């Protein structure tokens, strides 16, 4: 029992420290996802062409190697 109490306390401390960080990063990721999908839906042609160009260049680089 004596060994587990400090471990429990440490685990609780970690949880208290990490929880706000996890929530903040979840919020940031959600907002980034929303921004990205909004931009892609607003400019589908540009995004598709840009992705195709990026894939083309990566393919060329991969072919050389």
């Amino acid at each position, binding site marked *: 029992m004596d060994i587990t109490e400090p471990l429990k306390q440490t685990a609780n401390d970690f949880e208290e420290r990490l929880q706000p960080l996890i929530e903040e990063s979840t919020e940031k990721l959600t907002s980034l996802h929303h921004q*990205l*999908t909004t931009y*892609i*839906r607003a400019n*589908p042609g540009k*995004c*598709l*062409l840009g*992705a*195709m*160009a*990026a*894939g*083309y*260049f*990566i*393919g*060329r*680089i*991969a*072919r050389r*190697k």
Partner: protein
Amino acid sequence: METDDATSPAYKRQCHSGIGADDPITVGQRLDRICSAAGVALKGSRDVVSEVRDLLDIDGRVNRNPYAMIAAAAGSGYVLGGGLFSPLTVRVLNLSLRVGLRLVAASPLIQCKLRGFAEAACENGDGSGSPNHESQRSKEMKQGSCYDKPEGSETHR
């Protein structure tokens, strides 16, 4: 009419904008013709692009699955760039196969389900279908007894 015949001097005069039948085309006129031809070609290509866009419903697909469409475009560009038969592709495929197989092999839930399917397939193949036997089997499968079931256990009638 005289102007309809392409070889007639009047027609040539008309083509040369009334300057004269024997005067050569000026640089400005040549440029005008090139620009008008380019404009026609550009308009035609825009029409083709918009038709293809409507046919494939690209806007709708991007609205429904934006990331998938971006990934598909990047993949098409990768293939066009000649990266399909490159060492990088082989490495990526190897890695994804290894990771996928390990996930499937290590996941106990998937093992349990696969075992259940295999047993059901064997049951159906053997035709060993007494009602009690089947109901007990189906109960065991529902309860997820892959871990609890001891080895060599048989159902008793």
